[in-house]
């Protein structure tokens, strides 16, 4: 086996050094009734070339672009990733390193994460961002737990327009602690109804996603006023951070914690993971923040350098009193997003966000003209809810035969939205592909 370097001579000589006769003697400390009496029942080892054939065959069964035109978003977006980003990310000095516990030989990772924290803070309009969480869903759960820790209250309110899977993860995290989750309903225009907020007392946090699950831009400034009056933390979530290239960021609208999914920023969809949990807050709350942080300092000769810092918040020091149990996070994906943000630049992210907006508006107009109904009036980014002239099931199947996937049907999570689908387009969708979808509506 090419990953195992030991020759028979090596093994014999090492066994002599440790005073064992056979390899199996090394395991003599394992009681006989704990040992496996048989061989592992696994397939025979494959050569590199056989492995290629096997995995290629699995990959070929998947419906992906360009053979399929996939109008799906819902928390996972198709964006072009510059080859330079993938190439740099493949540098094994980054990818095969461990968590930077030894800063002297990890300055590359550390500076890159420090830059990621900075770019993320700027993108979200916040003062401090951590080194990353697993994904947008766990980031939201951790944000709510953070607010619960600080306010010492046991109740949170969650907009119904937060990604349904994120809400499910929040429930999983919060349920054993006995915390209560209240749901904020949806207005007719596709935004969160915050009118009920003043009646809810003792709230630790209110969480609203923008753009929300229906693609609609929420009025966070308005929400932040009521939330502040309630004495609760304002947590905003997101699944499509590219939107902040065009729209107001959550920080300038009064958010206390901003968290979400950074997959859009240079990370492939990869069937849903790995993603990137982005997490930012106000500096006054930094010591209550979960996750790792990289800080700037100097070495003993006065040269600038970077280290993991504020570790006393973390599990390996504070044990059960830690802010979170998170250890390994999504560091390499954080690097990917920093490389992507650096490649786009301030000018580029604006232009790309506008292009995404315009594409979705083009499709919206075309579908309306072809007899579809766009369900909600609010401004949207990248995705929107629509009903087709005919039953969704019929149209969806018909389109699938032509290798078009007509969005994500919504009735699974929103039973009242039968026949509604969530369509998404990004810069990767050409006008002719959108025209093809529009034409089908007229047939």
């Amino acid at each position, binding site marked *: 086996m090419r990953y195992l370097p030991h020759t028979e001579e090596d093994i014999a000589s090492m066994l002599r050094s440790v005073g064992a006769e056979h390899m199996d003697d090394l395991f003599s400390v394992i009681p006989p009734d704990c040992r496996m009496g048989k061989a592992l029942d696994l397939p025979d080892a494959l050569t590199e070339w056989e492995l290629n054939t096997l995995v290629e065959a699995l990959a070929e069964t998947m419906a992906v672009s360009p053979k399929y035109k996939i109008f799906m978003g819902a928390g996972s977006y198709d964006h072009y990733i510059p080859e330079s980003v993938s190439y740099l990310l493949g540098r094994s000095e980054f990818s095969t390193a461990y968590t930077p516990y030894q800063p002297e030989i990890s300055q590359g990772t550390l500076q890159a994460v420090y830059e990621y924290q900075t770019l993320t803070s700027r993108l979200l309009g916040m003062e401090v961002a951590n080194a990353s969480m697993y994904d947008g869903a766990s980031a939201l759960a951790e944000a709510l737990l953070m607010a619960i820790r600080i306010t010492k209250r046991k109740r949170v309110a969650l907009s119904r327009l937060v990604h349904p899977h994120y809400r499910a993860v929040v429930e999983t995290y919060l349920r054993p602690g006995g915390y209560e989750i209240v749901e904020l309903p949806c207005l007719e225009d596709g935004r969160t109804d915050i009118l009920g907020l003043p009646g809810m007392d003792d709230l630790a946090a209110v969480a609203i996603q923008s753009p929300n699950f229906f693609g609609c831009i929420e009025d966070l400034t308005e929400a932040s006023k009521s939330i502040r009056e309630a004495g609760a933390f304002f947590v905003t979530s997101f699944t499509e951070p590219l939107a902040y290239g065009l729209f*107001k960021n959550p920080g300038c609208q009064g958010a206390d914690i901003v968290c979400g999914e950074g997959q859009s920023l240079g990370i492939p969809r*990869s069937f849903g993971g790995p993603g990137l949990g982005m997490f930012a807050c106000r500096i006054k709350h930094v010591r209550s923040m979960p996750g790792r942080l990289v800080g700037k300092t100097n070495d003993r000769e006065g040269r600038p350098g970077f280290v993991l810092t504020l570790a006393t918040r973390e599990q390996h020091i504070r044990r059960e009193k830690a802010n979170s149990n998170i250890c390994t996070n999504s560091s*390499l994906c954080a690097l990917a997003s920093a490389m992507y943000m650096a490649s786009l630049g*301030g000018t580029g992210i604006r232009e790309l966000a506008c292009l995404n*907006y315009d594409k979705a508006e083009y499709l919206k107009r075309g579908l309306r003209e072809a007899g579809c109904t766009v369900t909600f009036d609010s401004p949207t980014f990248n995705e929107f809810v629509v009903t087709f002239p005919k039953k969704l099931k019929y149209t969806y199947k018909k389109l699938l035969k032509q290798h078009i996937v007509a969005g994500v049907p919504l009735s699974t999570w929103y039973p009242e939205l039968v026949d509604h689908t969530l369509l998404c387009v990004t810069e990767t969708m050409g006008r002719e592909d959108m025209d093809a979808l529009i034409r089908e509506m007229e047939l």
Partner: protein
Amino acid sequence: MRDSQGTSGLILNEPLLWKKGSKGRSGFSMPRRDVVPSPVAEGITGDGPDFPDLSELDVVRHYTRLSQWNFGLDTGMYPLGSCTMKYNPKINEKQATLPGLTGAHPLLPAELSQGALKLMYRLERYLAEITGMDAVTLQPAAGAHGELTGMLIVHAYHKNAGSRRSKIIVPDTAHGTNPASAALCGFSSVPVQSDEKGIISPEVVAGVMDEDTAGIMITNPNTLGLFEENIREIARIVHAKGGLVYGDGANMNAVMGIMQMGKIGFDVMHLNLHKTFSTPHGGGGPGGGPVCVKDFLAPFLPVPRVVYGEGTYHLSENFSQSIGRLHAFHGNFGVMIKAFCYIMSMGGEGLKQASRLAVLNANYIKESLKESLHLPYDRACMHECVFSDKLQETQKVTTLDMAKRLIDYGFHPPTIYFPLVVHGAMMIEPTETESKEDIDRFIEALRAIVAEARENPELLKSAPCRPKVRRLDETAAARKPCLAG
């Protein structure tokens, strides 16, 4: 040591990203605009983020230079205890970037994603076989996420049985994340001490186990690299009081094909794909932390689960007792691909041989260095061994000093000051992919450092001297945090 691996080459200074570039530059090939601009409602647009504008080469040089300040597994030996820094096969990286897999949307209908589902299903079966467990979830994104999942399952199991339990036993030789994971489920940790042999005795467990205790979290082999010989008896004691036995499988690399956790008393456990199953650690993730359970806990596994029937695979949320969802989608699929490829490349016999060699390498280091460094538990170890700085106390040289000096010799330091049961611990895990020559060089370097501690302790206290920066002021970093530029 005359021919140290560590040397100094030319590396370049590199400013922070935003100190580079010039407004109007771009490193991105902007897609052709084939639609007209649309008006945006008033009052909702912002200024956009203040990012620097860089060319493609600006970005490439920036990150290439940064990468050269890093030490990766491909650079050299990385003997971090309990982290299993083994070689990350390159072919697995290629498989994980096949367009059919990277381009797949997670909510694709089952009929359009059979390959991915089949891969997940098969990986679950293989992990069940390796651990001797019955059912597996691949959803947790890292080890601590897996621990949380496992604890949620323990919590749900007791709740379902109508019993409220508030405590969980955590030995001092368990992983650092264990107590924090348990705390999220409202369990308070009851610490128990290992005995003079470095393992847990059934008597101490019997002394604390009661009907208010949900179970025990055991790392086996433990963080001293020792096999918990009394595991069957401990499991019997915990089970007799209605508790569950949780296994932290972070050290699974010692026992593949040798011992199955599911057959010796464990009810639920997690694995680390980025340790035992060779997926790269990425400088701190993404990883993978699958959880394996016995049949009676399978109803509590997170949803969605991959189900096979009538010739097709699909995802099902139809499990009413499930603890719910832990991840936005199905977990870190990209990591699963690499672990699957690793198992397919190794086969059952290959995995067993990997464990044997990992244990041989660790014992070889232990025997070769025990004259130079204090070995608190002088017994046969598994895949890692723990030394301390006791013999260097007279020279006032610490574990930290020796670890930093190893850097000058071209090695990544071992895990230090963990486990806490050993004062000044130095936990060395070579893994099976290091050759005898490389291990001999590592042993020689540590021996040289021990000699330096006697002859020139100042050299160690000021180490490292070869990397780009010297020891950094961590106190100042924490006192006045500067976390963004």
